[in-house]
């Protein structure tokens, strides 16, 4: 079976697309805070996007990819930042932006 390996540029493009979708989904679905399903869908989508981005970030650490260490670690930290933001917004009841998931 032929292995489909993404190039460095493609991986960075996919990670950037994930970030864009994350921001778009977070603020679009965040406006529909009265629907509980929208909040749950927002949370699941955000977690999935963070997971996929994290996998791509870890794959980017392979020596095959010619990108500076600062770039690799920077992108990893951006993903962690989004993950922490998801945790902060949905799972910590004292924040309430958007409405907390498990009330």
């Amino acid at each position, binding site marked *: 079976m032929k292995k489909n390996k993404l190039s460095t540029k493609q991986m960075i493009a996919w990670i950037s697309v994930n970030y864009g979708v994350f921001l778009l989904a977070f603020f679009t679905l965040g406006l529909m805070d009265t629907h509980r399903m929208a909040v749950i869908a927002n949370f699941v989508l955000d977690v999935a996007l963070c997971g996929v981005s994290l996998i791509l970030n870890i794959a980017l650490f392979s020596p095959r990819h010619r990108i500076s*260490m600062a770039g690799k670690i920077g992108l990893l930290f*951006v993903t962690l930042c989004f993950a922490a933001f998801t945790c902060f917004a949905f799972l910590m009841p004292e924040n309430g932006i958007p409405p907390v998931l498990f009330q």
Partner: protein
Amino acid sequence: MKKKALKSAATGFLIGCFACLLFSVLVSLRVNTGEFCFALPALAKAYGSELLAALIQIGVFSWLGAACGIASLFSESAGLGPAKQGAGYLVSLTLGMLPLAWAGRWHEHIFLGIFSYVVIAAIVSLLIHVAGLVRLKSDVDEIRKAIGLGREVSNEEK
């Protein structure tokens, strides 16, 4: 390596001082009282003295700048191997943020502290990456210029 590290740290130190000044201007614009606040008002309030707050702010920024300079050196030293390179980069960046964590009292709000660390590390890393790209581009331009000059010289000789 030591000489290079010192040079990078000194450059980072100066950039940190400039970043501190820029930060003060932004804070003054945000406060919008018509006066220039060198130190963050909350910091001055917390330490009870504007001079002490200003000294702490300069120290924090310049220390972070110097650590970022060393981190950028680690980022460029591909000969070290990925594990040593990554570890050196993260350690220098983390050490650079220790005074910031102390001044910002991150230990009082652990989650916010971790979030701040991740955000600052991401911003600094991306800035170091962009600076590296700009440096690489200027090096390539210099090489191209040199090749162009070489051609001109050889044409004149003919």
